[in-house]
């Protein structure tokens, strides 16, 4: 297929996906789809490679999804079949958390299997231990709801009512699941018709050639981008605040190896799998899409014309230690993988920031917490439950511009809910919803500001759920001399004697009159703040983004009575010793610096090695015990690698007996 025809073919396939996604979005029942856009739509080859994807609406995570494992679990396909799965393990890790219900449909031409239409919806609930089926507290996948392994929901166009009934019997709001399933089925039928038209137009052989060519073109585009990245090994790690409710930090580490037009992501040094739901199920698949989301964003940023399909993952390979967070063994719980996944994106972007400092931004706030309020409406005598705001936080500063305020990074598809709509629907009062001055990381280009949401409830029995909150401890980092953004907060009754820091708590129960304050992080800064144009700093001060005190302390810019003092600024800026080149490329903030003073890279390498010397089921447990002991030592002195080995040795002995 010549290149012009291929472009036209690509447009046809993209249009088919768009029509499919819009149909799904328009007809889905659950507010989850409508408000958080947590669904996708695409087309795969008969082998399951995604060759076209809905790029304009829907979530960004499944661009490189390979449906092959799930497709192969069904032996034989016939016209009119529609298959379903929501089982992370049973689907061969095509599905990665139980609320994600995937459907796929074979598309035939004269009896020949040409492609699959596929789509997924994040269902509001699929049963299990908690409403919504997701919680950090869950310890195995059985608690995360009913799981359907790959099965035919429709056989030659006929609904499998038995399967449907079993599914709907086990979920909390069956009407919504059924409504969303119907939307998915409608979307698949639309795309089947569109694809058949494309096949009629180009011919079946050209179609098959065309879909391969689309994958090849995306691969070429990705290779061209990778070639523009200097060869080298780039290591980065970052932390989720807690590996369980009030647990120890969870470490995600990656070494990105760039060689010519190939890229390896080696996850050695990433924590062992956990007895909570923060695990990311990949089955050890070297190119699993949930690991590579950051690269889709980075590639699109570096080349706005790149085709988004499975071809772009071909030059990439992941090394996934077995029994780690990124390759957990059955039956690990996986429901909260989106929290871990968001941090994983930061880790990969941290590698890229080192490789391409002039083309990549600093860290964005990296939290996707949906705040849900549950309270009594005394007038209507009913419980009011509403998702009030996604608390996203600022984008990272970039090499040529400031980060976006209140939103950015890889999470720019969410909408907020107007205060007026919230107050009309929930009997509570919003006291404040605005940007937080001085929350952004300073820089030549500063981060975007974080947001604060403060509200008061009036009824007994109220509660607030804020799932997926993180970064109350470890901040969004700054790069190239830029500073880290401010961490997030979750506080009950701030500024009163009843104030309580809630940290990363998922659910909090409230009394009438209680006030909740939730803040999101500011983004990290890019470049030395002392090089920021004083006029920009002045504008920031006048706009209330930066206080005059911070202007002086962080930017070396002196502002007196709202005016710039150029002489004092020049003096102050000159008085600071010039930072050495390359010194402190990243700035992480005091919390991580203090933490890593104990848990140095060397210490963690040893810990990783030791943990991988014990069976998978023991690793998470041992990690906790080791941290307990090291914490104790660090109260009196700097723990050493020998301490670590000694602690570990004692643990092994006490649980496994003498070596």
């Amino acid at each position: 297929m010549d290149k012009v025809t291929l472009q036209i073919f690509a447009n046809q396939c993209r249009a088919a996906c768009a029509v499919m996604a819009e149909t799904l979005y328009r007809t889905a029942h659950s507010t989850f789809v409508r408000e958080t856009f947590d669904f996708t739509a695409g087309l795969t080859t008969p082998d399951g490679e995604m060759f076209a994807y809905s790029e304009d609406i829907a979530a960004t995570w499944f661009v490189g999804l390979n449906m092959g494992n799930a497709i192969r679990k069904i032996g034989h396909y016939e016209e009119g079949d529609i298959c379903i799965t929501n089982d992370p393990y049973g689907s061969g890790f095509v599905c990665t958390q139980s609320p994600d219900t995937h459907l796929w449909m074979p598309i035939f031409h004269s009896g020949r299997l040409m492609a699959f239409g596929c789509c997924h919806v994040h269902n509001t609930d699929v049963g299990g231990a908690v409403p919504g089926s997701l919680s950090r507290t869950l310890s195995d996948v059985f608690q995360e709801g009913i799981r359907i392994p790959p099965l035919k929901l429709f056989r030659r166009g006929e609904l499998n009512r038995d399967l449907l009934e079993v599914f709907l019997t086990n979920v909390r709001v069956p009407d919504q699941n059924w409504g969303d399933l119907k939307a998915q089925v409608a979307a698949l039928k639309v795309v089947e018709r569109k694809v058949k038209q494309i096949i009629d137009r180009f011919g079946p052989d050209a179609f098959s050639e065309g879909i391969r060519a689309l994958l090849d073109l995306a691969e070429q585009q990705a290779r061209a981008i990778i070639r523009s990245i200097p060869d080298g090994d780039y290591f980065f790690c970052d932390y989720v605040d807690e590996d369980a409710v009030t647990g120890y930090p969870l470490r995600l580490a990656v070494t990105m190896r760039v060689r010519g037009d190939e890229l390896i992501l080696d996850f050695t040094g990433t924590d062992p799998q956990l007895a909570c739901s923060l695990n990311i199920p990949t089955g050890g698949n070297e190119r699993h899409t949930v690991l590579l989301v950051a690269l889709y964003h980075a590639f699109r940023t570096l080349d706005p014309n790149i085709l988004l399909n499975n071809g772009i993952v071909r030059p990439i390979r992941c090394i996934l230690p077995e029994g780690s967070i990124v390759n957990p063994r059955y039956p690990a719980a996986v429901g909260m993988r989106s929290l871990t996944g968001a941090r994983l994106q930061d880790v990969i972007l941290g590698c890229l920031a080192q490789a391409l400092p002039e083309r990549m931004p600093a860290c964005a706030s990296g939290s996707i917490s949906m705040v849900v309020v549950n309270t009594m409406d005394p007038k209507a005598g009913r419980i009011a439950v509403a998702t009030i705001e996604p608390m996203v936080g600022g984008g990272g500063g970039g090499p040529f511009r400031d980060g976006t305020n209140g939103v950015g990074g890889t999470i720019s598809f969410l909408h907020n809910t107007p205060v007026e709509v919230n107050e009309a629907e929930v009997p509570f009062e919003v006291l404040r919803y605005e940007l937080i001055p001085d929350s952004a990381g300073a820089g030549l280009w500063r981060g975007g500001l974080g947001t604060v949401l403060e509200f008061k409830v009036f009824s007994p029995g109220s509660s607030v759920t804020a799932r997926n909150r993180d970064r109350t401890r470890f901040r969004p980092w700054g790069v190239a001399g830029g500073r880290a953004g401010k961490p997030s907060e979750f506080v009950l009754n701030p500024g009163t004697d009843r104030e309580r820091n809630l940290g990363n708590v998922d659910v909090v129960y409230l009394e009438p009159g209680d006030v909740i304050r939730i803040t999101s992080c500011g983004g990290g800064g890019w470049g030395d703040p002392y090089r920021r144009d004083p006029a920009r700093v002045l504008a920031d001060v006048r706009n209330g983004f930066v206080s005059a005190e911070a202007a002086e302390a962080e930017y070396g810019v002196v502002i007196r009575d709202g005016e710039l003092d150029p002489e004092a600024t020049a003096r102050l800026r000159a008085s600071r010793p010039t930072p050495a080149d390359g010194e402190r490329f990243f700035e992480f903030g005091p919390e991580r610096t203090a933490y890593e003073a104990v848990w140095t890279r060397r210490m963690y390498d040893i810990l990783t090695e030791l943990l991988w010397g014990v069976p998978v089921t023991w690793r998470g447990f041992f990690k906790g015990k080791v941290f307990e002991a090291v914490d104790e030592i660090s109260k009196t002195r700097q723990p050493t690698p020998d301490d670590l080995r000694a602690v570990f040795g004692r643990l092994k002995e006490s649980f496994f007996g003498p070596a």
Partner: protein
Amino acid sequence: MTYRIGVDIGGTFVDFCVFDEESGRLTTFKLLATPGSPGQDVAGGLGALAAQGTLDPARVVHFAHGTTVGVNTLIQRRGAKLALLCTEGFRDVLELGRLDLPDIFNLFSERPPSLIPRERVVPVRERIRADGSVSVPLDAKALKLALDRARSVGAEGVVVSFINAYKNPQHERVAKAFFGAEAPELFTVCSTDVWPVIREYERTVTAVIHAYVYPAMRRYFDGLEGALRSAGIGEGASVVITKVNGGVMGVRRAADHCVWTLTSGPASGVIGAAYVAGLAGAPNVLTLDVGGTSADIAVITDGEPMLGMGHHVGGYPIYVPAIMVSSIGCGGGSIAWVDDLGVLRVGPESAGAEPGPACYGRGGQHPTLTDAFAVCGFLAGGSLAYGALAPRTDLAVGAIRTIAEPMGLDLYRAAEAIINLAVSDMYLESSKLLARWGIDPRDLSLLAFGGAGPMVGCFLARELGIRRVIIPPFPGVLSAAGAVLADLKSDFIRTVLIDLDGAAAGSLKAGFAELKAAAFEWLRQEGGVADARTADVRLSLDMRYTGQAYEIEVPIEERWVETGDVEAIRAAFHARHEQVYGHSDPAAPVQAVNLRLVVVAPTPKPALAEVEPADSDEPEPFRLGKVFYASAEQTMPFFKRQDLKAGHRLRGPAVVVEDDCTVCIPAGFEGTVDRWGNIILEDRLDG
């Protein structure tokens, strides 16, 4: 003899459309726009029309006008320096918007900067609750502080937008009165006076854009009447301004409603298109208006243009009811290029109107879509812009060659590749929009207009599976024609947010009665433009299932409100929900969010003259030309549009040449000229 005139100012040209009421004859005229002095365009054009004997200004009874003054002020960021008074604790309504960014994959995606920088956003101590009661009273001290702040930042105007003002606008009004008394040099706009709807960002940004363009539009409208008088148009003529809702309003109050005039030109185009489509017997239409830099599409269903809210102007959303015209970044001036991997691309860069495509001979070097048509031979023998330009094929050839060589294609195949790809890009973008609106293109006809619309219309129709294409008789000035045809129209809204149960009947009745009173007061003030006795009032409700985040507008009958038939209203909602989303839940509780009322007073419509009947089926081509098309050189007939008479048959491949555009008819399309001069083509190709 009397005249009704429409004048629409676009990016490049000022379009004039003159209806002679007696003969029904329509005269069109284009003038190059002079962006520096917009009022001069209108006077100059009228002078020219008078000089050529087309028009006696003293006999003009109706003058309808669409202007780009507001859009240009916004795009060039030359609007008023404003302060925004907001509720304390909610300073970043503008800065945060609704959070979402335009490109979800790009890490550097951003929104355009707020029109009012945060420095000039002044928090005021006050608070209204969701039920309208006062939680924190507004006092003079707070207002004095706000005024000091507004003055210290050098504001020329002030927007007041408080939380929950849609429910109780009292604090906004008090603030406005205070500023009016204490600081008469500042103009003050309340959010609830512009569009009093729930959702603070949408209401605020609309009021801010309104205030931002207000001084420039006030000056323009104030000067317009003078300019018309000096051009000889009498006091008795009604002078109206086009609105984005597809209607018009009197010029005297246009400044006070200026946010409605932004992008009214494309909206008028759709009104013109709906009129023409009605004549051609096509109730469901996709309109395609292709200019130099973009293709604008809209949908007409059952003869009515589709309306929506949240249209973007210069990257900023405006939330008033508007004809949904969506822009696709591909037009006649879109530039073709080859990327590093040898892949051909068209746009998004455009040669625009200046210097324009290479074939315009005005210094353009880059190969554009229009150049590709020129190279293929479609434009030979035609003219552009009423003879002001003759296309230079030699220059187009030079430009296209720069693409052909790196692609390893011959000149003609490269040109055809550009056409095919541009049409395919338009197909992709229009498919997305139609899918979003839940419309199957196969149910539509395509009506193509604008300078480049008739050139690409048939090609795009075939991609979309649309079988019928209509080319109206005056495709270059359809916006000006639409302006003449537009009715006096105004929208009214009130947010109620009530459960639609039996108890709702009283609130609905009272609320609609108030809206109706406001509508007739508005009509009364419009005076002579239209006859209020013929006015039509349309009621609708924005409704949703309780708990849904979005509402849909559902037309309702006045008698349901009068008789308190809430059941009928609910049934209408379930039916509409089923239609739009494919499902409904008759057992679920329903909420009414907004009451809406539209008042329409028809303006007199000129009777369009019919074209002469043809002597025979076959029109006479003025030349036979060689055109490279469908991978081969073909000889095809070229017709002049003015030679086409009612009943003439056309068969592709063929080309019809007009004063300011070219109609390309590919093989497989066949059709006739109807008695109004429309070319109506059917695609006979199996598809």
